[in-house]
């Protein structure tokens, strides 16, 4: 039976012989959704972070054959109406990115963190934000998460 899952609420089908393809390459090369980045290929750096059924997952090692019925959300699906997600807005307000390459993964990790813990402590931010930023934007990422958490406290974020 063919594997079906959704990406940003669009149904997709895995072609024959593609079951072993990692989700990252399926997104980047089959669907041309290139916001999720290739960084290490071994699930270490987190540049490829996407959400699977609401949980942040590193997509570079995960074969699409295992995703039957899953709901995938990528950075491209975070602002479907064009209005930025509060976490994206916080990233802009704090002017977080330097080179920018890891930031989609960082944002996806932060969105997932705030969906689970809406007022994270500094320790919880440290424990959950384990993606590498080679430019060292960590202090601004932390500020952006704190800002988004405040927004969150005022108006709960709903699943896209």
């Amino acid at each position, binding site marked *: 039976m063919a594997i079906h899952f959704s990406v940003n609420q669009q149904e997709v089908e895995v072609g024959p*012989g593609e079951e072993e*393809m*990692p989700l990252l*390459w399926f997104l*980047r*090369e089959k669907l*041309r*959704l*290139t*916001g*999720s*980045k*290739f*960084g*290490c*290929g*071994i699930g*270490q*750096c987190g*540049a490829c972070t996407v959400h699977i059924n609401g949980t942040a997952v590193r997509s570079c090692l995960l074969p699409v054959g295992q995703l039957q019925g899953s709901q995938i959300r*990528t*950075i*491209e699906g*975070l*602002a479907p109406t064009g209005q*930025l997600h509060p976490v*994206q807005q916080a*990233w*802009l307000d704090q*002017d*977080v*990115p*330097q*080179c*920018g*390459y*890891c*930031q*989609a993964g960082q*944002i996806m990790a932060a969105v997932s963190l705030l969906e689970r813990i809406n007022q994270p402590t*500094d320790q919880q*931010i*440290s*424990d959950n*934000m*384990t*993606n*590498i*930023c*080679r*430019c*060292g*934007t*960590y*202090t*601004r*990422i*932390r500020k952006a998460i704190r800002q988004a958490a405040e927004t969150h406290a005022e108006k709960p974020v709903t699943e896209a």
Partner: protein
Amino acid sequence: MQNPHRRHFLKISALSAGAMLVSVTLPLRTRSSSAQQPVSPQWCVYVSINRDNSVVMQSPIMEMGQFMRTAGPMILADEMDLDWSLIRFDLNMPTYLTRNRKGDLVYDHAQIGTGGSQTLKNNWTYLRTAGATIRRMMIEEAAERWDCSPERLTARLSQIIDTPTGRKFSYGDLAEKAARRQVDTNKLKLKQPAQFHIMGKNQPAIDARDIVTGAPLFGIDENYANALRVAIDRAPAMGAQIAGYDKKAALAVPGVRQVVEMPHESGPHWPDGETQLRAAGVAVLADSFWAAMRGKDALKTTWKDTHQYAGLNSKAHRETLKALARSDQPGKHLRDDGEVTRALQQADKVLEHCYERSFLAHACMEPLNCIADVRKDSATVVVGHQWPHAAALAVEEIAGIDALKVEVINKRMGGGFGRKGEADYLREAIWLSHKVGQPVQVIWTRENDMERDFFAPAAAVQIRAGVKQGRIHGWHMRHAQTAGEAESHNFPAHLVRDCRIESLAGNEPFPLGTWRGPRQMQQAFAIESMLDELAHAAAADPLAFRLALMEPAKAHPIDYWAADHLDSGRMARCYRSAAEMAGWGRKLEKGEGLGIAGHVTFGTYVAFVLQVHVDDNKQLSLQKAWGAIDCGFAVNPNHIRAQMEGGFIDGLNAALFNEAVIEDSRVQTRNFGQLRWMRMGETPLEIETEIIESDREPTGVGEPPVPPAPAALANAIFAASGLRLRRMPFSEHIRI
């Protein structure tokens, strides 16, 4: 897309409705006006002004996270007196190339390349003059239409205003005709800093929205028509040659189209000597990168080592450098002031220590990649590279096509750090496209990227220094690095009467390249650690000891490419500011400590204070940092602060974790599993920055925040725990 030649642009501008492109000729400036940096008389192809007064601006300078895509337009727009809110930023960063009189390939218009923290400095006068020229053209055009003196008119927010009458023209009204004017360069007036309305204020990055929405900005995201995706199985040992591989198995992988052997290449390289420039490899060309990677795995390539690079070992090399630094073997005397031997004999106390650094990896977050489309007599290269002309030169050399017929499409770099100034990843893609007669996109795996790096040199710096009556009395520093020469001009030189600096090289053929202030880091780690050790030996406060050393405040002339003086007053000011912010001298909790360090890098002054905690089990945590920077006029304070934060963290990462390990000519640190990299939980919670106010010409900020970090950390750890670390990476000696 076609070659973005000036004439082509003019043609485009004539075709597009209402829009015009400003291209200015300055009659008094010629190609030969500057011997060192030939500049074309054609100016400012980066700005189009539409009839509705909106502006489209392209970036004159490459972007790799150092914010030049924002700073370049800020300079230009400020001198043009543009309304910043009316500007739309085009994603293109066009390369304009020409040849100087000697026939060398040079940048036309702005100096688009970026490196050595010189980018802003290299473009400062050019972009300001270009902006002021356009402003003058608008004024003269308005004056002619109103039949009045241009001197009574002012430019403000994309308008020319005649204040006495209150009448106005928008730039959009004037632009088309104004662009045909010739202006007398004697009439150009650059603004005074107090007149800047865009510079000197916090501006966010112009493309941050594209980044946070995941737009395809990077070379790796490009989907070039008909390009085969390429993965390369590269020789694991330096200099190794292909012994055999299973071509059939690779070709049997669905999507794989071709398998091509890539030759090994050696040659001279920075800073000195010969090394491997490109590893031998087997390229797998396929319809997708995923298929190419699977094809690569199917090759099961076997390799034979060669003797040329046999037996390279980074740990042994570090011991060699240490022994060299501590030996009596005379080095090259870079500086020999006074009588250092006698001074050390007269000192109350003499300390002698060696400070060591390993090879540093670059690990740009975006793995190296390049698209090359080499045709019969023209070519296109799509790449993020620090020096775009290198792509055109490589095509000329490899395919015999005139470099001026090469279109280089520049992409934002996902980090550069000096690695993306190397030509290897351009050359192999160009070679391959030329060979197979089809466009290719070569993408490196992380393992390729870390194995085939050009590392920052390893170093050992031995310092013998004396104190007498609380002041430094004799300073003898011996730098030993893998290759090349140390720098000689930094403090405490000039401030200590008897000072000798020697440089020695280990000269093993490790592949080396530029990094982010690496020589300055090696110096700063040794100097600022020793200053701390001397202060403690003299029972002095480390801050007070430094401030006394900097007295009297004086600008010392130096013979150095990136700056012409070294000002002890500016350095002292940074130490003081960082210390004041940190509350230097306040009471700390048990296990806490403050460390201070500073350095002058490429003419920019930086000092940091770092607060750490070390518990009884030698468990380290970094709490907070305070930095002060004097980089002349602060073009964009927001991004100077961002570089202070990120650069300091890069330096902390180098101090704690970054060590490329090479055993038997094979790089062992092949991915983030083996090469630990700093993450959020290990970083200080906050980094505060003070920018020293200044009207001096701006100097760079990309590298200067990095060098003080290792010494600030070592000094803080000592203050917190009494443990003195003199060998990077510190994570070998302390828990984190």
